[in-house]
C-alpha cells in the first residue's frame, strides 16, 4: 500500500466517491461471504476428520494407502496360490474369456457449498461370471477366490481414488477461495479505501480553495465598497460646501429641518 500511488484512476468527484463507497461495501460483503465459504469447505474436510485438518487428511490418505498395500499383498499372494494349484499360467485364458466388466463404478456429484465433488461408487454386476469355468479341472476354487480378493483390492483402489480426487479438487477450490479472500482483504479493500481517502482529500482541498476564493471575493468587495463610500462622501462634502454658501442667504426655513448639521449615515 504505497500510499497515494495505490489507488484507482478516478477523478476526484463526488459521484466517483459515491461509486467507490458502493464498491467498498460490495468488497466487504464479498469478503465475508468468501471467508465463510472457505470456512465451510475446511469444515467439510473437518467432517471427515476431527481436529487438525492438514494432518487429518494426510493421515486418512495414508491409512487408505496402507490398507491398499495390505489388500494388494493378499491379492498378489492369492495369485501365487492359483499358480501353485493350477500349476501354470492362466492369465491368457482369463483375459480372453472376460467379455464384460463385472466390477463397475458409478460417479456421483456431491455438492459441497457450491463445489462439485465427484464420488466414485463401485458395484458388481450380477450374474456376470465370464471365467467361472476357469480351472475346472484343477484349481478352480483358487481361481474364484483370487478373483474375489482382487475385486476387493479394486474396491479399495476405487475408494482411495474417490478420496484423493475429492481432496485434490477441494484443495484447489480452497486455494482459489483463499486467494480471493486474501486479494479482497489485502488489495481491493485497501485500494478502495485509499481511493476514497484520496477523493476525500481532493474534495477537501477543493473546498478549501473555494473558501479562500470566496474570502478573497468578499475582501475585494469590501474594499471596493469602502472606496465607493469614500468617494461618495467626498462628493457629498463638496456638495455641502456648495450648498452651505447658498444656505447662508436663506437659513431661516432651513434651520427648522436641519437644526443641527449631522452627517448622512451611510450603510
Amino acid at each position, binding site marked *: 500500500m504505497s500510499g497515494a500511488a495505490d489507488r484507482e484512476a478516478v477523478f476526484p468527484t463526488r459521484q466517483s466517491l459515491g461509486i467507490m463507497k458502493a464498491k467498498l461495501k460490495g468488497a466487504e460483503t464479498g469478503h465475508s461471504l468468501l471467508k465463510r465459504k472457505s470456512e465451510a469447505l475446511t469444515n467439510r474436510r473437518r467432517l471427515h476428520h476431527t481436529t487438525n485438518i492438514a494432518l487429518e487428511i494426510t493421515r486418512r490418505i495414508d491409512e487408505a494407502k496402507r490398507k491398499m498395500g495390505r489388500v494388494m499383498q493378499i491379492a498378489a*499372494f492369492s495369485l501365487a496360490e492359483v499358480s501353485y494349484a493350477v500349476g501354470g499360467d492362466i492369465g491368457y485364458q482369463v483375459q480372453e474369456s472376460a467379455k464384460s466388466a463385472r466390477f463397475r463404478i458409478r460417479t456421483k456429484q456431491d455438492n459441497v457449498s457450491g463445489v462439485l465433488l465427484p464420488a466414485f461408487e463401485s458395484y458388481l454386476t450380477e450374474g456376470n*461370471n465370464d471365467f*467361472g*469355468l*476357469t480351472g475346472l479341472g*484343477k484349481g478352480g*476354487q483358487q481361481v474364484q477366490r483370487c478373483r474375489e480378493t482382487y475385486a476387493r483390492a479394486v474396491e479399495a483402489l476405487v475408494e482411495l481414488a474417490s478420496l484423493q480426487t475429492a481432496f485434490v479438487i477441494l484443495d484447489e477450490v480452497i486455494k482459489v477461495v483463499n486467494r480471493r479472500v486474501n486479494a479482497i482483504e489485502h488489495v481491493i479493500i485497501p485500494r478502495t479505501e485509499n481511493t476514497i481517502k484520496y477523493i476525500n482529500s481532493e474534495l477537501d482541498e477543493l473546498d478549501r480553495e473555494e473558501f479562500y476564493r470566496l474570502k478573497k471575493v468578499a475582501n475585494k468587495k469590501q474594499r471596493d465598497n469602502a472606496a465607493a463610500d469614500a468617494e461618495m462622501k467626498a462628493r457629498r462634502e463638496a456638495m455641502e460646501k456648495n450648498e452651505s454658501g447658498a444656505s447662508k442667504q436663506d437659513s431661516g426655513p432651513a434651520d427648522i429641518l436641519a437644526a443641527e448639521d449631522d452627517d448622512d449615515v451611510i450603510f
Partner: protein
Amino acid sequence: MEGLLFNVNNGYVEGIVRGYRNSLLTTPAYSNLTQCETIDDLKLQLGPAYGDFLASLPPNPSTSALASKTTDKLISEFRYVRANATGSLAKFMDYVTYGYMIDNVALLITGTLHERDTRELLERCHPLGWFETMPVLCVATNVEELYNSVLIETPLAPYFKGSLSHQDLDELNIEIVRNTLYKNYLEDFHNFVNTHSDMAGTPTAEVMSNILEFEADRRAINITLNSFGTELTKADRNKLYPTFGKLYPEGTLMLSRADDVEGVRLAVDGVHDYKTFFDAVSLGGSSGPGNMGGGSADGKSLEDMFYQKEMEISKDAFTRQFTYAIIYAWVKLREQEIRNITWIAECIAQNQKDRIGNFISVF
C-alpha cells in the same frame, strides 16, 4: 517275466530316470530353502540341483523367471530321455506329453476364437506339449480351419473326433473343450497301458492304472466341485467324467447328481482315500462349499491333499522295477518340485513366511 528282456531296450532309460529321481530335492534341502531371506539366497541354495540353469538369471530374479528356468531343466532332461527311448517306451513318453499338448491346443483355440495372433501364443505354450507341427496351427484364421489342422497335424485327433465338432469349439466354453479332451486322453492312455502288448500285465500297467485312476477321480471330483454355481449343467458335467477310475461307475453317477459339497462327499464315500480327504477338509476348515483353499495357515485344502496323494503314488512307483511308470512319476515329482520352489520363492518375495511350509515334500 517282464524283467527278462526289459533292460535290453529300456535299461538305460530306467537307470537315467532313477538317477534323476535321486537328484530331486529332499526334505532337508527344502527346509534349507525355507530359511532363505531373499530370492538370491534361494538361488544359491538351489545351486547344486539347478546350477547351470539358474546361472543365467539376473540377481533377484522374478519368481516366474525362476519357475521357467527350473522347468527348462525338466524339459531338457525329458528330451534327453525321450531321445533315448525306443519302441513302446517312446510311445509311452509321447502319451505323457499329450496332456500338455491338450493345454497348448486349448490355448491356441482360445486365441483363434478371439482372433488374436496365435503366433505370439506359441511362446506361452508348455514346452512339454510342443509338437513339430504346432506352428502350422497358427496359420488357421478361423475355428473351422483350426479344427481341421488339429485333426490332420496333431496326435490329438482321436480325442477331437467323435466328441467335438468344429461348431462345438465355437459354442462351448474352452474349459469344457479342454476337459472333454482330457477325459478322452485319460481314457485312451488307460486303454493304452492296459492293452499294449509290451505293457499289459506288467508292473507298468499296474502302476499306471493306479496313477491314471487317481487322476481320473481327481478330475471328476474337481470338476464337480468347481462347477457348482456355474452354467455347467449336470448332463454336460457327466460327459466330462472319465469312464474309469475307482469312482466309476457308481461314484461318478452320484457325482453327476451332486448339488453341493455334501453330495460329493456322499459320492466318494465308497473310496477310503477320498473319504479321508473330505473328512480332513471338513474338520480343518469349515469355510463353506466351494472354498477349499487354505484359509487357515495349517488347514490343507482338498487340492493340497490330492497333490500329496499324487506324490505318494508317484514315489511308490519307484519301488517297482521294469516299468515305464517311473518316467511318468518322475515328471510329476519334478513338476511338484517346481511348484514347491515357485511357492517358496513367492512366499519369500511377498514376505508371507507364515505359509511357506505349505509345499509338499516327498523324499
